[in-house]
């Protein structure tokens, strides 16, 4: 079971199989409780537009958790890069500009926010790898700094007034598929390939499972950790741009509930927060379950606060199941206390 991503266990005994059942069960439950609204094509489309932004953050969380770390700065990075992109757009791209010019500025803004994401990730990675800060504190502090930069750049208010092409990123469909969903699919596939088909992915898994063994196996740990946090930062900045496009504005405190959600999805998806195990397909199934649950609760007119309550309870429940229900997932660091 703990043999890593290459030795896939039988389909029905994989932890992801349970998730599939959960996702289907939540879907069925919501379909029964609110059949005409939940199953409508309109709801399906709106769900496909809603989840990619936090799902991408969950992917960023996943790769850091694979190393036994965590990235609490994902939302800060997303907002910081979105604000940067938004300021570039509002400064240089007048809403009245032609499509060609607007597209050019949009690409520049995208590149700039990706660069911000990479730099933020590099800062996190340096703090964790070279300065030896615990990932929780490093990203907690840096998250405050990134959010603080976004506040300082905007004075705390929202940046808005973009050319029309910006809305394309978050609100349009390409061949009938929402653009954010395509972005999420591409990033998920990328992460999956990276984790399962490359030497880098093997090193990440190995380090997460047993850091000492990885050190003795001559893995360049610092370099690997830097890469992990840079990837997480760049993923977060993509999420930031999607949020910016969907909200048609950027602000330092958007998506504050997404941090909990990203941790929840990664843990729900079977990623071991102590490191060493995690599969993208699990995260995708977890995202779908969360979105079905969230939309369904919305239709049942459950308040935002109650949703927060349900998410938190779910996070703890899933952790109990994962640590006590599935012996194969029991972490190496937790077992010595037995």
């Amino acid at each position, binding site marked *: 079971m703990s043999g890593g991503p290459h030795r896939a266990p039988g389909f029905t005994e994989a932890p992801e199989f349970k998730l599939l059942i959960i996702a289907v069960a939540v879907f069925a439950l919501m379909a029964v409780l609110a059949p005409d609204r939940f199953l409508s094509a309109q709801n399906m489309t709106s769900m496909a537009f809603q989840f990619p932004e936090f799902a991408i953050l969950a992917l960023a969380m996943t790769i850091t958790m694979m190393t036994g770390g965590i990235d609490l700065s994902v939302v800060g990075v997303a907002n910081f890069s979105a604000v940067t992109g938004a300021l570039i757009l509002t400064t240089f791209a007048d809403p009245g500009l032609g499509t060609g010019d607007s597209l050019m500025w949009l690409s520049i803004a995208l590149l700039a926010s990706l660069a911000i994401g990479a730099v933020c990730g590099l800062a996190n990675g340096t703090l964790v790898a070279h300065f030896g*800060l615990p990932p929780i504190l490093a990203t907690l502090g840096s998250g405050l700094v990134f*959010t603080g930069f976004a506040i*300082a750049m905007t004075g705390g208010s929202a940046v808005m007034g973009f050319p029309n092409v910006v809305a394309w990123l978050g609100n349009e469909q390409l061949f009938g598929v929402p653009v954010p969903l395509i972005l999420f699919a591409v990033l998920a596939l990328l992460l999956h390939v990276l984790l399962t088909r490359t030497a880098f992915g093997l090193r990440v898994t190995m380090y997460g499972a047993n850091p000492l063994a990885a050190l003795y196996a001559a893995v360049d740990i610092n370099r690997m950790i830097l890469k992990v946090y840079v990837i997480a930062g760049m993923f977060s900045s993509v999420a930031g741009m999607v949020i910016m496009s969907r909200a048609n504005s950027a602000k330092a405190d958007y998506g504050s509930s997404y941090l909990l959600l990203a941790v929840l999805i990664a843990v729900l998806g079977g990623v071991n927060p102590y490191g060493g195990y995690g599969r993208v397909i699990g995260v995708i199934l977890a995202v779908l379950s969360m979105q079905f649950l969230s939309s369904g609760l919305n239709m049942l007119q459950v308040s935002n606060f109650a949703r*927060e309550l349900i998410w*938190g309870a779910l*996070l*703890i429940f899933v952790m109990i199941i994962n640590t006590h229900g599935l012996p194969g997932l029991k972490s190496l660091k937790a077992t010595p*206390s037995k």
Partner: protein
Amino acid sequence: MLTGLLPKGFWTRNETLVAGVILAFCLMATLSDPLFFTVTTLSDLLRASIVIGILAIGAMVVLISGGIDVSFTAVAVFAMYVATRIALAVWPDMPWPMIFALAMFVGAGLGAINGLFIAFFKLPTLIVTLGTLSVFRGFLLTFVGSQRISDLPPEMRDFSRGVLARGTTEAGSFYSIPWSALALLAVIVLTWFMLKKTMLGRSIYAIGGSQESARRIGINVQWTQFFIYVYVGALAGLAGIIHGSVGRMADPFSLVGLELSVLAAVVLGGARLIGGYGTITGTLLGVVLIVLVQTNLIVIGIPTIWQSVTIGLLILLGTGVPAYRAKRAAARAG
């Protein structure tokens, strides 16, 4: 130095570093505004530090044991709101010590929930408390209420009016030291006694140093951990009810969001996430620095919008310096 075992480590201790930064801050502030260094500023500083101070001491105990708690603000606001509601519903003239005890009891109960998952289910502390943060807050706002209550029980208002000392400086500005300062003092003394003079306190440090070693020398790790979270919950309840009384409003939306500043204060004071380290002196210095940054940043010429950046950088510096030093030491030791 109460806790300075090795004089040679004095200059590299977090406490010294933080105290130096505080002195520098005050010096710069006094230079730019001569009115800064007055009794009034000091009493303002003290009043602003009480709630954060009590929360920080609780968070410090958790960090010493090798865990992290981010749910204590939700516990505080939950306990404050529930205790106020109960007092108003059952006995509006309830004496304030009873309301306070009630809040601490509610807080301890919520802390026990954290303790249950952490000590007995052995779940990672960050994930549990991230989860309970939203569970407590969600439960409070969904089932207990989301209305601000400004019509507090009269005894709570009496408490907020009580002062230990008050007066007017020669310059004509007013200062006062409220009763709640005594609560902070009590928490400090109690926690100091527990950590330094009791077997329980030494067990908390031992668990933070190494859970396995602590278990092998016969410490009951599970119950000690459970106790820690109950204790932190009770302190959070106390901080919450003081916040409500002094602010003269039971606001279910307040406090949550403050947890990062409190944790910043604690780690600045030298408590380490890996556990086993942390002193009350350091934590209090950390609190003073954070409160200074939150209230007086503008005095030294930094605009308030840079507050988050400053606190974030302080966290990174405060944890980065000892972490880097430990890493270097480990590398030298091979």
